[in-house]
């Protein structure tokens, strides 16, 4: 077998050195009746060409590739410069372990330090960690951090939070003494109702978790939210499910958020059917020592040279065990490194250009869609790159199905998350679209509805 380098002669030599005649002697500690289960149901080994053929066949059974896609809702297609794929696939970045031996890991450590810096700049906050699993679990970790830091146990969640994020938060806190309370969204604006938020905030409230741009595509009035939350000495936690928006909208730190958490898949990671992606967390400095996840810090070596290490490790499970700030160990290091490469290549101008194109394409769609009789854009202002539309006749799923036949994945029907929302469809735009693609979408909607 090509992955096993020992030859039979070497195995014999090694057995002699150990003092055994048969390798099975090494397994006599295992209850003999249970040894060597039948594996007959499993397939036999494949050569490399056979493996390629089998996976090509899996690919053939998918049918999405040719479609023009406007799917988003927390997973976004963006252009990935070739440099990003080339550099990130190098074995030096792909195949090391966690940099516990910093003397031979300065490459990973410095790359993550640069990533942390860029995420802090993008969010307008002091400190970003080295990654968490994904946007949803990052939001759940933010809830735990807010509760730990405040000593309070009530957490408010905006109803315009991505439903899967809300679900993951519920899962994480289900056995902890944390109360989750929903905060309503105003139908007319698509924004959090600040009056409902004020009425829900009390002295036991640790935090308010809101998403901006929210799940309906609308950019929240973060300043009003943060002001209301801070009046009660609670923390404002902004969730960002489409990190590209950070390059276009006022950053969370400037708005007044105490923490920003979310999904940075947009920074150079392929759609990959949902993962692995990149959870990020950025916070004001006061949270630093209670943050979950790894942190890379700068220091000096014995010769006084600049170098990087994993630091503030006492927060983590391998030291604090059940008292740790989180149970996380393996994170998304490679994804974070790749995001750092992406951000470096895009640079100040390129990232702004991509983000602007995302918005302008969405804005173009909204203006043109006003002429379509079959749909109505629900929130025609203050969105970033996602647009919620209502289908006037029939269901959003029917419209999506009709467009699929024309080779267009028109958007995510909200019935995917909430069976009651039959006539709503969420469309996402990016710099990968152009006017012709959007015109094709508009024409197809016009014909189908």
């Amino acid at each position: 077998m090509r992955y096993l380098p020992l030859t039979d002669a070497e195995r014999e030599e090694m057995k002699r050195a150990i003092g055994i005649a048969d390798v099975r002697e090494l397994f006599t500690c295992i209850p003999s009746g249970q040894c060597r289960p039948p594996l007959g149901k499993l397939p036999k080994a494949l050569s490399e060409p056979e493996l390629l053929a089998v996976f090509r066949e899996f690919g053939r059974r998918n049918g999405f590739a040719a479609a023009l896609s406007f799917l988003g809702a927390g997973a976004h297609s963006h252009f990935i410069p070739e440099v990003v794929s080339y550099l990130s696939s190098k074995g030096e970045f792909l195949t090391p372990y966690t940099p516990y031996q910093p003397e031979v890991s300065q490459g990973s450590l410095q790359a993550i330090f640069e990533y942390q810096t860029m995420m802090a700049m993008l969010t307008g906050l002091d400190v970003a960690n080295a990654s968490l699993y994904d946007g949803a679990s990052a939001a759940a970790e933010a809830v735990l951090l807010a509760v730990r830091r405040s000593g309070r146990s009530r957490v408010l969640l905006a109803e315009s939070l991505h439903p899967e994020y809300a679900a993951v938060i519920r899962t994480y806190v289900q056995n902890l003494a944390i109360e989750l309370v929903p905060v309503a969204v105003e139908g007319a604006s698509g924004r959090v109702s600040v009056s409902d938020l004020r009425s829900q905030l009390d002295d036991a409230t640790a935090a308010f978790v809101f998403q901006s741009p929210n799940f309906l595509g609308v950019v929240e009035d973060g300043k009003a939210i943060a002001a209301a939350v801070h009046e009660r000495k609670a923390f404002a936690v902004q969730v960002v499910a489409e990190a590209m928006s950070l390059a276009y909208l006022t950053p969370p730190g400037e708005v007044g958020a105490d923490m920003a958490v979310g999904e940075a898949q947009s920074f150079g990671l392929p759609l990959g059917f949902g993962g692995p992606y990149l959870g990020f967390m950025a916070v004001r400095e006061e949270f630093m020592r209670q943050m979950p996840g790894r942190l890379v810090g700068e220091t000096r070596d014995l010769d006084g040279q600049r170098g990087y290490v994993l630091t503030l490790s006492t927060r983590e499970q391998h030291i604090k065990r059940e008292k740790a700030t989180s149970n996380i160990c393996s994170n998304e290091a490679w994804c974070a490194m790749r995001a750092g490469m992406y951000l470096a290549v895009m640079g100040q101008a390129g990232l702004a250009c991509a983000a602007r194109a995302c918005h302008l394409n969405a804005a173009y769609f909204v203006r043109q869609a006003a002429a379509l009789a079959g749909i109505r854009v629900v929130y025609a202002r203050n969105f970033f790159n996602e647009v919620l539309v209502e289908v006037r006749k029939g269901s959003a799923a029917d419209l999506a199905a009709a467009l699929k036949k024309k080779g267009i994945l028109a958007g995510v029907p909200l019935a995917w998350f909430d069976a009651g929302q039959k006539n709503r469809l969420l469309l996402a735009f990016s710099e990968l679209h152009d006017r012709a693609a959007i015109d094709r979408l508009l024409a197809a909607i016009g014909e189908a509805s």
Partner: protein
Amino acid sequence: MSHLPKLIFELSREGKIGCGLNEADVPAEPAVDAELRRGAIADFPQVSEVEIVRHYMALAKLNYSVDAGFYPLGSCTMKYNPKINERLAAAEELQAHPYAPHDLVQGNLEIMARLEEWLVELTGMAGFTLAPAAGAHGEFTGMLVVRRYLQEKGDPRRVVLIPDSAHGTNPASAHFAGYEVREIASSAKGTIGLAELRPHLTPDVAALMMTNPNTLGIFESDIMAVAEALHANGSLLYMDGANLNALLGIVRPGDLGVDVMHINLHKTFSTPHGGGGPGSGPVGVAANLLPYLPVPRVRKGGSGYEVVYADPRSIGRVKNFYGHFLVIVRALAYLMALGRENVGRVAEDAVLNANYVRSQLQGLLDLPYKAPTLHEVVFSDSGLPVKTLDIAKRLLDYGVHPFTIYFPLIVHGAMMIEPTESESKETLDDFIAVMKVILGEARENPELLRQAPTRTPVRRLDETQAARKPVLRWRKGELH
């Protein structure tokens, strides 16, 4: 003046471009209020494409990796990451959007179903969720399943028992699932038997979390009796499968009485560690626990694969979308390449390699637990003139990545060596020879080891300064 690469921010010059995108070809008419928009991202990099390539190439040179050499980190299973798997995971035809209609992603759903079949057959568990993002995430998921099951039976109970040799994620995961952790001392043999379990097995015990083979590399040979005692008490047995590499094709945890287990695709199933992640931590359960697994679940329906998004008995969602799909792709490719005829050989070679290292080093280093070794062997620094850390750092000077140090906590100055099946006899012999040289140096010139490493890009780093005055980002105008 450092010979190390500058930071990307220090390379930045106003006006340099790394990526030339065109402006959108639609009218430049924004629909966002001006006060909601940001200005330029202050101090963000402006570096040319070629300089970026050279920057990262320079960083790459500073990293050790499995592709570069032997990486005997105990409990981490740093095996070779087959290159074909990278090509397969990068295939355009697999990069579906997670909300693409199911009829357009049948191939992807089948990949997930196939991996689940493999895992079921290899472990003897009734079913798996592929959602958890990493081992610790799997532990947390598994403990939520335990709790939900016991809750439905009337009482979630209060305590989870964890051996003192356990990885730190075990107590942390149990804690976040709402349990109080009670530590059990391992026996002199290094294992947990009935004698160790019984005094702790009170009616409020929800489960025992046991790593098998444990972190000493020793098979928990009383596991069936332990499982029986737990079950008689209404408690469950959770197995941390971090070390499953030793058991592949040899024995199935499901046949030993295990109720819930997680495995690490990035350890046992060859997916790259990526400098710390991403991993993937599927959780398998016995049949009576299947209803509690997280959503979504992929299943075969009348007209192809379908996905169940909601189930009132499920613990809920632990992650958005489906899990780390591209890691799942690599793991399935690895298993299909091995085939049923080779999975047992993986365990045999891994165990043979560990025992060979043990046989060659046991006269030179203290071996505190003498029970038979499976995939890894743990030595101690007792009786040596230097500390484990010094030996580890000296290995770096010889171009070898050190073993896991100071873990498990029950061994003084632990050196935990897991060679994996990926290593040739020559590699092991080289490592053994280097260890002999270093142990000689330790006797003759211990200071050499205390000063090590001296041949690496940087020397020992000041971790105290890093933690006292944390500098976690670059800032313009500050001294870096």
